[in-house]
C-alpha cells in the first residue's frame, strides 16, 4: 500500500467501476427475465452524455459537481495509498455533502426532496461506517488502512457483527432497492430521480464517473474486513465479493423501495445493537 497503488486506483477505478455497473445491469436484467444491455453499456451511456449540450440550471452546480468528483477521487486515493481510514470516511461524507448541495442549488422540488432524503441516507449509514473504523482500530490498533489489512487474521473474524451491519448499509451506499430512496438507478419514483433530476449532459456524465470511483472505494472498504498478511486474503475476498455482489443484486430485485423513516430506524437499530455489542465484546476480550 503506497502512492503507487493510489495512482493505479486513479487510473483503473473508473473502468472497473463502469464494468461492475455493466455486469450489475446485465445480471439485473436476467433476473427480471430481460436480455439486458451489453456489458459495456455504462461506458456507451456516459460517452453519449458527454456529446450532449451542457444545460446548467444554476452555474454554482458545476462547482459542487467538481468538488463531488474531486473529493471522491481524493478519498479513494487516500484509501488506496494506505492512509488514515477515519480521514477516508469523513472525506467521503464531505464528497457526498457536495452532491447534496448541488441538488439544493438547482432549486427544483424533486431535487431538494431528494437532497433531504440523501441527508437522511447519510445519517443512516454514517454511524455504521464510523463503528467499523472504530472496530478496525480496536482490532489492529491503528487507523491506517495499510495496517488494518495487515495482521494474522482477517478483521471479519473479530468483527462479524460490524460486518453484518456494514452489509446492511452497503445497500444504501450502492443505492439499491429497498434503499434507493434519494435517487435510484433509473428515474422511476415519486421524486423522479431525486438528487440528479435536474442534472443532464456532461454534468451527469461526471456524476456517473464519480459513482464508479465511489463503487470501487466502497468495495475497497469491504476488503478491509478480509485483508490480512497472507496470499489467501485476495482469493478469500474475491469469493466474498462475488457472493455479496450477487446478494446485493438479488435483494435489489426482490424488494420494494421502503420509506426513508424505515431505513433510518432499521439501520440505526442494527448499528446500535449488533455492531455495538460486537465492539463491546471485543473491548472486553482484547
Amino acid at each position, binding site marked *: 500500500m503506497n502512492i503507487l497503488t493510489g495512482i493505479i486506483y486513479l487510473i483503473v477505478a473508473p473502468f472497473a467501476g463502469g464494468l461492475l455497473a455493466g455486469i450489475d445491469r446485465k*445480471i439485473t*436484467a*436476467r*433476473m*427480471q*427475465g*430481460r*436480455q*439486458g444491455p451489453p456489458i459495456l453499456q455504462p461506458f456507451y451511456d456516459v460517452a453519449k452524455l458527454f456529446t450532449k449540450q451542457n444545460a446548467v440550471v444554476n452555474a454554482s452546480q458545476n462547482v459542487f459537481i467538481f468538488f463531488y468528483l474531486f473529493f471522491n477521487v481524493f478519498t479513494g486515493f487516500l484509501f488506496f495509498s494506505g492512509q488514515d481510514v477515519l480521514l477516508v470516511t469523513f472525506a467521503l461524507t464531505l464528497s457526498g455533502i457536495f452532491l447534496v448541495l448541488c441538488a439544493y442549488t438547482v432549486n427544483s422540488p424533486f431535487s431538494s426532496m431528494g437532497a433531504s432524503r440523501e441527508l437522511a441516507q447519510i445519517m443512516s449509514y454514517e454511524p455504521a461506517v464510523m463503528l467499523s473504523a472504530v472496530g478496525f482500530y480496536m482490532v489492529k490498533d491503528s487507523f491506517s488502512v495499510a495496517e488494518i489489512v495487515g495482521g494474522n487474521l482477517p478483521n471479519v473474524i473479530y468483527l462479524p457483527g460490524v460486518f453484518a451491519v456494514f452489509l446492511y448499509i452497503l445497500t444504501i451506499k450502492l443505492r439499491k432497492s429497498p434503499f434507493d430512496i434519494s435517487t435510484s438507478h433509473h428515474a422511476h419514483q415519486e421524486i423522479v430521480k431525486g438528487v440528479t433530476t435536474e442534472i443532464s449532459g456532461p454534468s451527469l456524465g461526471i456524476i456517473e464517473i464519480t459513482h464508479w470511483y465511489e463503487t470501487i472505494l466502497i468495495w475497497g472498504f469491504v476488503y478491509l474486513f478480509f485483508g490480512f498478511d497472507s496470499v489467501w486474503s485476495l482469493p478469500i475476498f474475491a469469493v466474498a465479493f462475488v457472493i455479496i455482489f450477487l446478494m446485493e443484486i*438479488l435483494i435489489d*430485485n*426482490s*424488494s420494494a423501495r421502503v420509506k426513508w423513516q424505515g431505513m433510518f430506524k432499521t439501520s440505526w437499530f442494527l448499528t446500535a445493537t449488533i455492531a455495538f455489542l460486537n465492539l463491546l465484546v471485543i473491548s472486553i476480550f482484547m
Partner: protein
Amino acid sequence: MGFAEFTKTAVRNLFSKPATKNYPKVKKEFFENARGHVIFDETDCIYCSLCARKCPADAIKVDRNAKTWSIVRAGCVQCSNCVDACPKKCLSMGPEYTPVMTEKGCETYARVPDNTEDN
C-alpha cells in the same frame, strides 16, 4: 411476512432464457388473424367510396373520377370496418403491423392504365 418471496422467481429467471427478443434481428411472428394493415386490391374496385364513408377515422379517400384509392396509414385504426363494407371484397386485412414511418404520408393507389399508347 418475509423478504425472500421473489428470490425464487428472480433466480429462476436468471437461469432461464430471457423472455424478451433481440428485436430487430429476431422478428415477432404475427398471428394469422391479426388486424395489422389494410390491403387494397384494385382489380375489382369500382370506386364506390363506401369504404371511405364507413371509415370511423376518415383515413380512406376515394376519387371516383380519377380512379384513385388512398389511405393515411397513420390515421387508420385497423377496425376493418371498410373490409366488411366493401361490396366487391377487394379490401382485406394483413397481419403485419403498419411499419414505423417518419412522415404521416398518404398512400395512393392509382388504377394502372390498361395498355394505352404511351405505356
